[in-house]
């Protein structure tokens, strides 16, 4: 069940990467990358549960934090055209 969900989310993120490849504007690609990030962090959570190791869950939290900061950096760049403002 858990591994099945992990495979399911991985296949879903491969399907979403179609939108990242083909998306007409840059916003499409960013939203696709955000979706892939959240799906793959769910995959990491499933792997941590499958191995029953509590310390692997920390990595998912660290990845979620840094994915959020990534998205803020992209948004800042597209809003102002530079990162300094």
């Amino acid at each position, binding site marked *: 069940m858990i591994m099945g969900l992990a495979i399911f989310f991985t296949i879903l993120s491969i399907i979403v990467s179609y939108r990242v490849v083909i998306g007409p504007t840059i916003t499409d690609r960013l939203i696709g990358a955000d979706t892939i990030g959240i799906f793959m962090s769910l995959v990491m959570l499933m792997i941590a549960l499958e191995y029953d190791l509590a310390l692997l869950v920390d990595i998912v939290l660290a990845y979620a934090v840094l994915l959020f*900061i990534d998205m*803020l950096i992209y948004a800042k760049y597209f809003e*102002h055209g530079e990162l300094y403002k």
Partner: protein
Amino acid sequence: MNKLMKKIMISVVLTGVAFALYQNFSLMPEYQGLNEGLSNYIIKSGLNDTGSLNLITAVLYDYRAFDSLGESTVIFGAVSGIVLILSRKMLPVSSKGLSFIVKRALGIMTPFIALFGFYVITHGHLTPGGGFQGGVILAAISIIFSIVYGSAFDYRRYSPQTKTLFETGGALTFLGLGLAGILMEGAFLQNLGFLTAETGTLISAGSIPYINIGVGFKVGAGLAIIFYSMIQKTFEEDF
């Protein structure tokens, strides 16, 4: 006179380095072959030697702590070069930032991100992570400040002088623990035995948590300096 003082100081420092190197080389064990010796030895008796549950941290900050010192010196060199090339005086700071929603929500979330960074740093000998990874999470706080609230906020809260202070303080912590290893245990960066407590608790594993804290502050402040120097605006008048 000035040149003479410089030469004397350089020779004193070089003598100290030679002494540390001689101490280390005299303690080296015999080579036992690649398959037999090292990895099996570390897996078998790493916990007894260092008291650290995470064997990778044990290798990084106890067995191979001298390499980690070299790596943090590399980061120090990179920071120095980037600041030397890219930093400019009399900067116009800006405080536009992102929208109000993001500012208000990150005001709530940022302390927890800092807490998570400190958790990763201080639990380096118990869970995966350690100084470098937690330091990058701490540097993300400075990135958040200059991205979300504008670079004026980052400049006011953590000015480059404060960041430099943190970085040199981390490096000096590392070096000071190494010198304490010479004084008390007989070798550079030897694990301090009298700090060891029960295995699995937070303050255990000798000097490894303190080295982790030093490396964490050093890496976090160094990467924050790199990011702050790299996003600066270039003036058209400069060219």
